[in-house]
């Protein structure tokens, strides 16, 4: 691992943390507050790539675990991982890994649609498939009840996927960071 890799890992962990510090922006029509923080793994995977992105999320989880109040709303500590959002946060490294892998694999043939699919797979499919069973185990409700509860986040997450695509494309043109796998 090069020095550059270490700095990138730290940077994307910090970007994820910083997104939790900024106030959540509220959607005008459905009035659902969105914390930008779950865009962290999407950006990390799509910009820093599979290995660096995944390690950045592991680093972020570590920082939260040692008790820093980096999660949106100033939450942190080992207790969080035993709470309802634990599964979502622990899935972030896997999400970044998958997004980064798909980006690196298809770096020469990326299109808006492909990117949206990749980010949805990592940022929504992977995260929900870890988060929903976790909620169900934690709150002692059935899987389907947990799944219905989690649907409330879907509109916000779709907007985050769109925003990520709109951010990542110009960033890649201005400052390419990924190499083909």
């Amino acid at each position, binding site marked *: *691992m*090069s*020095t*550059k890799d*270490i*700095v*990138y*890992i*730290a*940077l994307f*962990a*910090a*970007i994820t*943390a*910083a997104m939790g*510090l*900024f106030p959540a*922006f509220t959607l005008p029509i459905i009035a659902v507050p969105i914390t930008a923080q779950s865009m962290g793994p999407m*950006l990390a995977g799509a*910009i820093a790539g599979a290995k660096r992105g995944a*390690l950045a999320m592991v*680093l*972020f989880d*570590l*920082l939260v675990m*040692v*008790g*820093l*109040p*980096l999660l949106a*709303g*100033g*939450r*942190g*500590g*080992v*207790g*969080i991982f*035993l*709470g*309802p959002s634990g599964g979502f946060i622990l899935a972030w490294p896997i999400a970044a890994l998958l997004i980064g892998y798909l980006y690196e694999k298809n770096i020469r043939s990326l299109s808006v649609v492909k990117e949206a699919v990749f980010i949805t797979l990592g940022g929504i499919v992977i995260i929900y498939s870890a988060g929903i069973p976790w909620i169900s185990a934690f*709150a*002692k*409700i059935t899987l389907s009840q947990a799944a219905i509860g989690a649907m409330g986040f879907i509109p916000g997450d779709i907007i985050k996927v769109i*925003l990520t695509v*709109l*951010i990542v494309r*110009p*960033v890649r043109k*201005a*400052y390419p*960071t990924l190499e083909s796998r």
Partner: protein
Amino acid sequence: MTVSEYIHGHSFIHRTPPGLKILILAVLGTLLFVFPNMIFAAASLAIIVMLYPLAGISPKVMLAQIKPILAILVLLFLVQLFMVNWQSGVLVIVRLSALMLTASLITLTTRSSDMIDALEKRLAWLYFIGINPAKISLALSLALRFIPVLAAITQEVREAQKARGLNNSVIAVAIPVIVRTLKMADSIAMALEARAYDPQSPYRAKKSSKKETSDVD
């Protein structure tokens, strides 16, 4: 902007080694979930609440620790109330408050630098599977340093875009912020290497006696 909530003090809680505190938290967290027992949960909560004054932390600060999760606590109570019964609801709340207050007490009484040092020591075994714990603590320290820097850059870009009439465009702020921080990251990496930082070797003198095994990837 600061990420540390550390409150200076000399109590025995402040002096407890950070590694031990994390261990106690992990054990308490596991026990609370393995044994869903009201008496145990209430006793844990009572003990942790009594530890706050012993650490010299005001009740106001203690209540502020619970405030961010208040809405979640109410929601969890309602879910349990309708799905199971009120006793279960109370148990869930007492348990989560006890954990939250324990985690917060550790954050309030431990400097992040001490926590990172403790973590580096705990991770020493990684050395034998080819991962250098010194790299992890470099990444940890860099990440902590980056957070206020990012906030400052975002503020600058926000003002610049406001001057151009882009008041509330998330994208118009995010793109320049990310490009600028990527450039900054590259400069920092070069600066680290220019000062002879070698990621393959531990930069702490105490480990230099050990024969280096290469972990090139």
